[in-house]
């Protein structure tokens, strides 16, 4: 008998304009000691399954059809009180973001003890003992001391360990993990996955891991279920799904994952997605507006951008006395050069200072010390606004989050037109309009997009709008700060292809920041590795991946999840 079994689950979210069907007809079985992965892109209905099992669907979600069995017993349609005895006690759940899933006002002890006392018939003293044991089990050092601390006193990875301890503390039979490592750095991700694998082996629980990350799947899962728009398209062993998938969606999804092992020219597109049909139109740079009056065609030097001994400090403890102030050195003595026409990668874990470097180059932050040279001119020495704007026009930035980097109250046409008007690049409004339409067309959105507002677009489309906006000043240097890390793989492939095409067409120089090594390998010519604000290694990207010099780069490459190939 299987531990957990779902038959014909259908989940709907009724709304005024008819129901949205989140999952259509899901069947799954989970055995004890097994790790089942559910993979799919956003909106595929993966999380809905986990929420429906525990009857935690966000209102107005309902499950009109389907049966859920836990050890042969039907658990859907139980009363709230009966359901509460299953939640935590027999089915535990781990959430995505460890920073928000713990109550910030209670100590770890309060949260653990409350959960244990609620489910197990034990005294508070015994519960405390068990809580300390649990923390020890999930690998938190000094558990007896750490248990008195509040969530904010733990790092992200440690908090996720606490979350796991909380889910396991009442000894459940099934664990549902919803994107358990998505919010974590690679090295922390590897530790957490190790821990989960070990716990499953030791305790013999069944685990369902929901993720969009093929690397996680290949790392830890025994079996995989692939979902697409509420349908299960394929179920099989991890080897089979990753190595030799049957369904065309699975095939294209796997091919769209950036490969860490070799560099390929273009990303294969997931043909299953409608958006993928948008073709990129090539232009003749000599006649097109984007190629016109590039008043900087002949570079003065080999390097377009040079950074010398850059330093940035953030004040962490404030005081009126300068001697008592404390600083965090976000960027510490960083120097590198970017050749004209190359894509320069900057890689590192969160907090390594890579975004800070980008912000200093683009002028958002003023460096504490050091110089930034752009085409031979020292940007840190510029004083007049006019001079600054002259260089600002030549460099543009694309941000990570396509949802917050576009002003939701402006029409797309105005968003793209703003930099053109600001830098007075067009003589009349009619010209601005035609340029905007042209740009939108060029990034694959079509001129109809101009009249809409950003919220009418998906994440990938919004990122295209950001790219159009960045191109509107006819820049020659683009800074891309994690441009695809908020996007699904299939969309990521499209956006990266677009950036590559544009880079070649307009001979742009790019600074490409990412924490994702496979993406870096696919996109960049040279790479700099950063750690704790310092530059660890700079190398040609192929050299770095084949033969890393520094220990840290080796360490990062080791952690990179690899897809198993059959």
């Amino acid at each position: 008998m299987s531990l957990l079994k779902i038959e014909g689950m259908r989940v709907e979210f009724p709304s005024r304009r008819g129901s949205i069907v989140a999952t259509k007809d899901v069947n799954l079985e989970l055995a004890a000691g097994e790790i089942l992965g559910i993979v799919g892109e956003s909106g595929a209905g993966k999380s809905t399954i986990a929420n429906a099992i525990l009857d935690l669907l966000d209102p107005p979600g309902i499950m009109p059809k389907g049966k859920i069995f836990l050890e042969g017993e039907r658990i859907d349609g139980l009363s709230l009180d009966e359901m509460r005895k299953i939640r935590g006690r027999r089915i535990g759940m781990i959430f995505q973001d460890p920073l928000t899933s713990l109550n910030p006002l209670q100590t770890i002890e309060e949260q653990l003890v409350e959960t244990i006392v609620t489910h197990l018939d034990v005294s508070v003293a015994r519960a405390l003992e068990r809580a300390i044991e649990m923390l020890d089990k999930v690998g938190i050092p000094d558990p007896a001391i750490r248990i008195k601390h509040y969530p904010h006193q733990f790092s992200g990875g440690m908090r996720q360990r606490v979350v796991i301890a909380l889910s396991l503390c009442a000894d459940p039979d099934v664990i549902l993990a919803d994107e358990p490592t998505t919010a974590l750095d690679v090295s922390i991700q590897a530790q957490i996955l190790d821990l989960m694998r070990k716990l499953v082996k030791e305790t013999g629980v069944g685990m369902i891991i929901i993720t969009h990350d093929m690397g996680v799947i290949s790392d830890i899962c025994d079996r995989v279920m692939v979902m697409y728009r509420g349908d299960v398209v394929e179920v099989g062993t991890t080897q089979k799904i990753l190595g030799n998938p049957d369904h065309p969606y699975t095939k294209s999804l796997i091919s769209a994952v950036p490969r860490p092992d070799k560099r390929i020219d273009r990303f294969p597109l997931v043909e299953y997605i409608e958006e993928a049909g948008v073709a990129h139109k090539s232009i003749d740079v000599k006649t097109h507006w984007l190629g016109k009056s590039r008043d900087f065609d002949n570079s003065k030097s080999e390097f377009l951008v040079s950074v010398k001994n850059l330093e940035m400090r953030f004040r962490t403890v404030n005081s009126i006395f300068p001697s008592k102030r404390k600083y965090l050195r976000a960027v510490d003595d960083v120097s590198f050069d970017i050749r004209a026409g190359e894509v320069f990668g900057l890689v590192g874990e969160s907090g390594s200072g890579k975004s800070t470097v980008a912000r200093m180059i683009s002028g958002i932050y003023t460096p504490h010390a050091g110089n930034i040279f752009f085409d031979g001119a020292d940007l840190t020495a510029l004083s007049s606004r006019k001079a600054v704007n002259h260089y600002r026009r030549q460099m543009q930035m694309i941000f990570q989050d396509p949802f917050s980097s576009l002003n939701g109250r402006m029409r797309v046409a105005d968003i793209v037109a703003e930099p053109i008007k600001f830098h007075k690049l067009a003589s009349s409004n009619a010209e601005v309009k035609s340029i905007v339409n042209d740009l939108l067309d060029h990034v694959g959105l079509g001129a109809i997009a101009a009249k809409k507002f950003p919220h009418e677009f998906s994440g990938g489309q919004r990122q295209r709008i950001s790219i159009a906006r960045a191109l509107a000043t006819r820049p020659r240097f683009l800074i891309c700060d994690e441009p695809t890390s908020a996007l699904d793989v299939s969309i990521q492939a499209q956006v990266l292809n677009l950036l590559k095409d544009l880079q070649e067409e307009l001979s742009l120089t790019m600074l490409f920041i990412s924490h994702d090594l496979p993406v870096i390998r696919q996109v960049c010519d040279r790479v700099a590795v950063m750690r704790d604000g310092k530059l660890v290694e700079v190398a040609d990207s192929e050299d770095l991946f084949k033969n890393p010099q520094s220990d840290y780069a080796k360490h990062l490459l080791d952690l990179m999840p690899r897809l198993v190939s059959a």
Partner: protein
Amino acid sequence: MLTVALIAFALFQFVGDPISNLVGQDTSTEEREQLKQDLGLNDSIVVQFGRFVGNAVQGEFGRSYRLRKPVKELIAERFPATLELSLLSAFLALLIGIPMGVYTALNRNSWLSQGFMTLSLIGISLPTFLIGIFLILFFGVMLQWLPTFGRGDTVSIGWWTTGFLTVSGWKSLIMPAITLAIFQMTLIVRLIRAEMLEVLRSDYIKFARARGLKERSISFSHALKNTLVPVITIIGLQIGSLIAFAIITESVFQWPGMGLLFIQAIEEVDIPIMSAYLLLIAFVFVVINLVVDILYYSIDPRLRMD
């Protein structure tokens, strides 16, 4: 505080000539000059301001032009009345407002919460004096249960006079306190409700549910405590404004508090009272903000770092 002191001091400089308020029509110019000299009005502004601040720190605000009594005494007489009124209405507002806010957040669609929300909308829109007048009309004039003005009998404990210890004191207190509380209460209901709905959507509440914790524990020890963190600031400021802006309620009920004193002072251009009132209210706000900060500190462990 110094800034407020400067403004309070400036009142003396710009609002009317105190001498002409003090003396009659037929006082000669020499006598006026003599008086000015005696009162120190001929000294430089900086010296006068220094003297003003020095006196204010000692609680000395001069004499009221109108009542010919030291301002200190007048304030001491009136302050307990206002404080009792404000504290009782703040207490009422919290006692009724918080449970109502929690209830409407937890049972968003029940008819009772809909009713509460409608009532709170009425409460927040009706001007205070109107509520006061209606209460007087109903309980004071038609039913004749409660007195319509004054504080009733009071008991003196040292310099403090209290209405809490007599029946007639309570009877007089109840209507103004309710009048003053209604606006604050409706504000608190809406604030708690909005903030709590936000907290209930958060990940840690969902995680608490997924761990099978009891609903009552989730609602109160997890959700409500997190709700209170931002709400405390507003509540603190509101209590400050209760004390400061009890003026309208006090005039409607002829409550012998500082608000009434202040209104009368304005009518008569009684500057020492006005400036003392200004300073005192500023001081109350500073104290309340300090208390709020300390409360913050004790509730939110994230602020206790280092």
